[in-house]
């Protein structure tokens, strides 16, 4: 779960990390009010879960409350990379002498959290890693022991910091580690970590991604979920515990298992079709979960053909069939052609249950994918007279 900048900064502040004075607003009037209370020049920043806000015009400077209101008017409601802006963060403007980078990510290869710092910040760290790898320092952290003071201090010296910046840098590094570990983050990033013209360190932008699997022990964080940014399909998938990703094709897919689901999409693509979604019903799904999955696909107006691929095991084919039938019965719109491939546990019962229903059976994955693609292109042709 990605947190907005303002949410990340609130967490930072709770751990003593220095962030600019500021507050969030959902209307231009609120924005004006916030700027008025802050006084002086401010930055108005679109709160949206994607990068590239600056380029898209989502970040504006304003010298007073008046200008802030105008900036907020322009930003609230705009779309950045397809995401609508509902909130802006208004913060006191900072006079920046240098922009650095500090982040903690999960290093999959070494199975450890790794702290990454650079004396150059404000840009995407992946870019920097590609173009100027010598500017980047990495510190693997023992997750059972945590970050030691001297390790954080050594990083400060690697960056060439000295004098009065050593202690605050070390404190920020330790604080960011606590943010990471105590909130079960998979990413905690300060970018840029700025040195102001007065020689103070401050977290000008922040990003936290929380581990969805650990939210059960951070119920207060769960409430930070951005429900406004969620589509109806995403909401339904989350509530039914389904893995669902909308894509831009027209063949709706439902598969058990993430790898098999991707392989199914790939095969659709291989035969010239375009998957409308990724949808993994997981292992051992019961009928009601299958029904919920089909409802999501049926509600997608882009879907012209549905492809169901089930390799039974813990998941029983008869349960899947029952779920499909239930959802078809409840469907308020016409059900598109459906290609069903059931194999494994209780596949016979499953097929029998579906015999009466209007579905196309396939015995192999290849056959299923081919049929689905054929149907989809047929459908397309039918619609183009």
């Amino acid at each position, binding site marked *: 779960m990605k947190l907005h900048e303002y949410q990340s900064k609130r967490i930072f502040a709770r751990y003593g990390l220095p962030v600019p004075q500021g507050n969030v607003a959902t209307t231009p009037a609120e924005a004006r009010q916030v700027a008025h209370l802050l006084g002086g020049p401010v930055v108005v920043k679109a709160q949206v879960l994607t990068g590239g806000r600056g380029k898209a015009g989502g970040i504006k400077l304003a010298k007073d409350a008046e200008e802030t209101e105008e900036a907020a008017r322009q930003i609230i409601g705009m779309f950045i990379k397809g995401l609508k802006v509902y909130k802006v963060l208004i913060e006191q403007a900072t006079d920046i002498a240098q922009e650095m980078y500090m982040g903690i990510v*999960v290093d*999959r*290869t070494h*199975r*450890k*959290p790794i702290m990454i710092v650079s004396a150059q910040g404000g840009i*995407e*760290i*992946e870019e920097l890693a590609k173009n100027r790898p010598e500017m980047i320092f990495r510190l693997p952290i*023992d*997750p*059972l022991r945590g970050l030691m003071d001297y390790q954080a201090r050594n990083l400060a010296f690697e960056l060439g910091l000295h004098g009065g910046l050593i202690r605050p840098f070390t404190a920020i590094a330790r604080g960011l580690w606590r943010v990471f*570990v105590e909130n*079960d983050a*998979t990413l905690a990033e300060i970018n840029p970590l700025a040195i102001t013209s007065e020689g103070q360190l401050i977290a000008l932008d922040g990003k936290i991604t929380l*581990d*969805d*699997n*650990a939210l*059960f*022990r951070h119920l207060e964080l769960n409430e930070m979920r951005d429900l406004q940014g969620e589509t109806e399909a995403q909401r339904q998938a989350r509530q039914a515990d389904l*893995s669902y*990703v909308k*894509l831009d094709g027209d063949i709706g897919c439902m*598969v*058990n*298992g*993430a*790898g*098999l*689901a*991707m*392989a199914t*999409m*790939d*095969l*659709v*693509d*291989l035969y010239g079709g375009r*998957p409308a979604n*990724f949808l*993994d019903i*997981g*292992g051992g799904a019961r009928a009601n979960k299958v029904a919920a999955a089909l409802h999501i696909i049926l509600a997608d107006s882009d879907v012209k053909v549905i492809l169901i691929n089930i*390799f*039974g*095991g*813990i998941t029983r084919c008869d349960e899947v069939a029952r779920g499909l039938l239930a959802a078809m019965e409840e469907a308020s719109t016409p059900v598109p052609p459906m290609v069903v491939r059931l*194999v*494994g*546990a209780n596949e016979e019962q499953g097929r029998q249950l579906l015999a009466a229903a209007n579905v196309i059976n396939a015995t*192999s*994955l*290849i056959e299923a994918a081919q049929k689905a693609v054929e149907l989809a292109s047929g459908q397309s042709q039918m619609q183009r007279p």
Partner: protein
Amino acid sequence: MSILVNRETRLVVQGITGNEGSFHTRLMLDYGTQVVAGVTPGKGGEWVHGVPVFDTVREAVQTTGANTSIIYVPAPFAADAIMEAADAGIELIVCITEGIPVLDMMRACQFLEDTDARLIGPNCPGVITPGQAKVGIMPGHIHTPGPVGIVSRSGTLTYEVVKALTDRGLGQSTAVGIGGDPIIGTSFVDVLRMFENDPATQSIVLIGEIGGTDEEQAARFIASEVSKPVTAFIAGRTAPPGQRMGHAGAIIEGGEGTAQEKIAALEAVGIRVARHPAEVADLVAERL
């Protein structure tokens, strides 16, 4: 021969009294696996399908000589179960549980570094050596003994490939599901090394997917250390960046971890990459 599990495997099932634990204990016993003990704290003294239940792994090991553990413990407690198993002297720990917090897994892996235990998974279907032992949740009947070693990040996708191999008469030495999480105990490279050293394995199948760089590392390792033919399949060519595709580990981040990169890395060192699961069997057959 085989790797990881075989007739000598003496299995303890952690979480044996739960629904999933009990169900799969039955299936593993049916397959012929030596399930010698179960563990559920507080249920010591009970029996499940004729298997004695203990309160602690330590007690189970001391009483039954268990050397391998399989974990069906719910996600919030699974990392602790892994550490308990390692501390009790278990050599091979197979963790089926899905949804374990990443931090818990990093801690468990760090803990394991000081022990002799090897972890497979989590979020994996387990390990099967056909005809000898099934330590996992895969459907046993689709497997058959033979010369092909399989290592995979996936579950049902692996079954699909196994079925294609078996249908073509190509049996398996051992099939290892290493798991779909970002933090897993055993990598492709670890298993490839075992297969390379296993006389029973003549051909290797590697089933990868988007996310991370494990496949790229496997490619480098195969180029320098593996003499046996390797066939690969990578799922997720059509996956968009930044989205988690089911598995917690299946996500293209910062432009890293695409299927295209992985396929290119594998093909660059001469590994044949199938375009779909069934083709894996064709490619394996060509070189056996």
